[in-house]
């Protein structure tokens, strides 16, 4: 299957400034499989330097500071990392912004 990954802000920068990335996965596949593939084959790092600080995306296999949406819905309201993917799914990745 093929899914489309849309990274935003500095996660996009870390993936070579690509607005969309088509990723091929063996079926069946989950968000966890997709993230493993992005880290292994596409250079999605565990942490990203931002200004003078570091933004941690992953702690081991746990997602830390990254919002993951599948087809416009948070995976946290679906089945988390075990959320199943289907052909044509769109995955948005962006860092949460908290301050005011």
């Amino acid at each position, binding site marked *: 299957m093929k899914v489309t990954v849309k990274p935003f802000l500095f996660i996009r920068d870390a993936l070579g400034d690509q607005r969309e990335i088509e990723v091929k996965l063996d079926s069946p596949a989950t968000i966890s499989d997709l993230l493993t593939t992005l880290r292994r084959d596409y250079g999605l790092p565990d942490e990203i330097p931002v200004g003078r600080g570091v933004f941690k995306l992953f702690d081991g296999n746990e997602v830390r500071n990254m919002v993951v949406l599948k087809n*416009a*819905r*948070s995976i*946290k*309201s679906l089945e988390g990392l075990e959320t199943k993917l289907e052909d044509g799914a769109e995955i948005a990745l*962006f*860092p949460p912004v*908290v*301050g*005011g």
Partner: protein
Amino acid sequence: MLTENELKRYERQIRIFGGEGQERLKNAKVFIAGAGGLGSSISIYLAAAGIGRIRIVDHEKIELSNLNRQILHWDKDIGKKKAASAEEKLKKINPYVRVEAISETIEENNVLALVDDFDLIVDAMDNFHTRYILNRAAIAKNIPLFHGAINGLYGQATTIIPGKTACLKCIFPEPPPSMTFPVIGATCGVIGCIQVTEVIKHLVKMGSSLENKLLLWDGLNTKIDEIEIERTPSCEDCGWK
């Protein structure tokens, strides 16, 4: 009715949405949660635009390290309550606006009384704990919530219409980790002004908005993106399943 002075004062924007639109702004009651970085730019531009009644709530006192971005507050105000400082400045910016500044912490048990019969909520908070309280209050009162957040050179904004759009809990079912965030004042200006533009369009009924869209501001590369978002049927705060 707008006075002659008001017609003159708002002439440049009446050219956009007419006297009728300006009347709508004059009759509007806007609740601003927070008088920090976002709250500064939001309240200044809403006051200048002629919102009839503004209630701004913040429990903090002004510190020196606030002054790079919290442009409502000046050197002379260090140590004072942000609410009092906000009230003083906003009344001077536009004496036609009724400003009520309240120095309280927004909590689950006082939020409905604080928001009272106001028409809409503007989120200028710096943490998701209070944002979720505002989200639930907006849903309970069936009034819009205009969300904004910033970090460094980055920011986000969305417009939440209860029953129609994804709410904050749909997008962020769990609070992102709190952190002492770096920021330049201009990021608060960009995001705050986007929120104000959304509020004004909502009130004068013009244009399209950030409904079901999360706008992302990338100040480092000067780019704006939008992410489509959808309501979650099982959402803890606004779900129906």
